[in-house]
């Protein structure tokens, strides 16, 4: 089922929850709606589900406008953050509720319920009540209930947020695998960029109701369209430094008080083409900052955070901070001054006014 959102807007009184959203989701695709709390992603999901009516704009399933269709007519399954199981019914009744409403025969109901429950690994729990299950089990029941009517679209509203970290990791892989096996078009709302990156084939990043970027994880990570996306995707987040952009005979340079870097000509030319102002914001990810003897700048260690596999070190120079991911064997102490090198090919440039990337068309 292909889903298209055309100029979708949703107002709650004066508040603009979703602002002019245009999105296209291919059949069998797994798309994540990513963004901080209050950015409009859940509102968008509920509009697709039919719970909210759009203030303006259209929602199309396979080219047909479905704005007026009730949720039950849209052939969707939804998994909620709170699972939304019916506490007064057994697990079996919960899972088969959609079928009961369709008045399917008891025997067929039982067969389908058993099949779905076995697929989700909860086959023996059918007689229990939701209150007697663990969080992970409840969540599987919720997914089973969404799957049993063999929907054309699966909607997930932050389903893993209420699980502990370990279980979350496992369920991530399971949900991704499940979606691939079933081939159902899925939309997954989350504020966790790791979840979005690992699970989705394309991610739509939203902020304040506006779509910021829409692309594959690779595209968003390596070629972010704007400052927000660059800072939101990737953990630990990208470093942003205010620099001055200059073109000299020998090439393009970024400089600030303690730092002067020559950027590759291709990048500089692109930036110039995009009307880069003099005051510019440089972005560089912590993994592209390394400790090297003859580096680009000298900075003092502010704090060291060991992560096991590597360490995150925050450096300070000239009132600016820069974070670097260094090997675990790093032995610097607070106050040490070290020389840092920036990976030039991985430098991002942003316009401080428009916040747009100056490296578009790269």
């Amino acid at each position, binding site marked *: 089922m292909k889903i298209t959102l055309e100029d979708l807007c949703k107002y709650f009184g004066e508040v603009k929850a979703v602002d002019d959203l245009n999105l296209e989701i291919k059949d069998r695709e797994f798309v994540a709606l990513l963004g901080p709390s209050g950015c409009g992603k859940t509102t968008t999901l509920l509009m697709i589900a039919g*719970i909210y009516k759009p203030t303006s704009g259209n929602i199309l399933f396979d080219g047909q406008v479905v704005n007026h269709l009730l949720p039950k007519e849209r052939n969707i399954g939804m998994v*909620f953050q*709170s*699972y939304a*199981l*019916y506490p007064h019914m057994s697990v079996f009744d919960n899972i088969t*509720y959609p079928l009961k409403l369709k008045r399917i025969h008891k025997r067929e109901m039982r067969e389908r319920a058993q099949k779905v429950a076995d697929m989700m690994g909860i086959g023996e729990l059918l007689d229990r009540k*939701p209150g007697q299950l663990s969080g992970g089990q409840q969540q599987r029941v919720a997914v089973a209930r969404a799957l049993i*009517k063999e929907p054309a679209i699966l909607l997930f509203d932050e389903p893993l947020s209420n699980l502990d970290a370990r279980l979350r990791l496992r369920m991530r892989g399971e949900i991704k695998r499940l979606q691939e096996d079933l081939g159902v078009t899925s939309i997954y709302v989350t504020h966790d960029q790791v979840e979005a990156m690992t699970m989705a084939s394309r991610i739509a990043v939203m902020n304040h109701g506006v779509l910021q970027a829409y692309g594959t994880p690779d595209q968003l990570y390596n070629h972010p369209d704007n400052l927000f996306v660059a800072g939101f995707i990737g953990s630990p987040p990208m470093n942003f430094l205010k620099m001055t952009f200059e073109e000299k005979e020998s090439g393009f340079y970024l400089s600030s008080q303690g730092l002067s870097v020559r950027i590759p000509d291709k990048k500089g030319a692109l930036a110039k083409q995009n009307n880069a102002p003099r005051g510019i914001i440089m972005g560089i990810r912590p993994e592209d900052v390394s400790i090297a003897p003859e580096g680009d700048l000298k900075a003092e260690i502010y704090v060291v955070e060991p992560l096991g596999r590597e360490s995150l070190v925050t450096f300070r120079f000239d009132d600016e901070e820069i974070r670097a991911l260094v090997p675990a064997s790093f032995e610097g102490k607070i106050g040490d001054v070290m020389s840092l090198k920036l990976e030039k090919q991985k430098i991002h440039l942003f316009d401080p006014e428009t916040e747009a990337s100056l490296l578009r068309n790269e």
Partner: protein
Amino acid sequence: MILREKLKPLLVYLVLIISSSLIILGFLWLFITSFSTRTEGLRPLRWTLHNWSFLWESPFGPEYPSIWWVTLNTLLMSLTMTIIVVVVSSMTGYALSRMKFAGRKSFLSLTLILHAFPSVTLLIPIYFVLLYVSKIPVIGRGIPLLGGFGYNTIGGVALVMVAFQLPFGIWVMKGFFDNISWDMERAALIDGASRFKVWWQIMMPNIKPGIAALSIFSFLSGWNAYLIPFTFTVGRAGKTAVLSVYLQNFMSESVMTEWNVVAAVGLFQLIPVILFFLLTQEALLSIYGGGKRGGV
């Protein structure tokens, strides 16, 4: 230090015992009086069952209904009123809690205002309304047992009680509905339920403490009601009397009041209430506690 710690609960108990003993004293007197011919303070002069004779013969004469008929009236009135209040309140509460419609906010404020409204001021207008209802065929006077919904019928009294009980009921039910997560409803809507099915199959089972509490509350206020049944029925011991009105007959201004019989009849009206209350305390308290356990 230890003495003071021991003293505090002791003091609390003392206060509680003193204040409750006054109340218990009253009930004790009631009980003793109903089984004796005369009492001096709490000391009965002679034990007798004569006061309870109203149980098997009508004290006012054969053409007047026995107390069992009156009890049936009271029961019917309270039950009818309770059922209507619960059904209407739960539907209204759901609509107010979940649905968006024009005038919702004003309706909500109206409910609150009506709850605080002095019902006494409306007695005369309601009399005229009930008179008018009496003229409607069937519903006015023709329903068996209830006698209809017009003036001087049990149904009519129940209707008026419903009107006065409804604002409270709506407010309480709305409160209970507000406590249920929206997600559960959304899931049901997506699963294919109609609004009505969501209300009946999903919401109501989760409101059970609320329904129980409201039913008990409404039933008790119906059972104990005096002013409204008195105003809208004819005759103190007539065919449409309820227990509280019936009790009035034993207190007269021309003949000396037999307080022992009054005590007996009062106790008779009281016993079901006490039993009921003892059995359902927890449900009643949940109105003020709110919230629900289990699930999200």
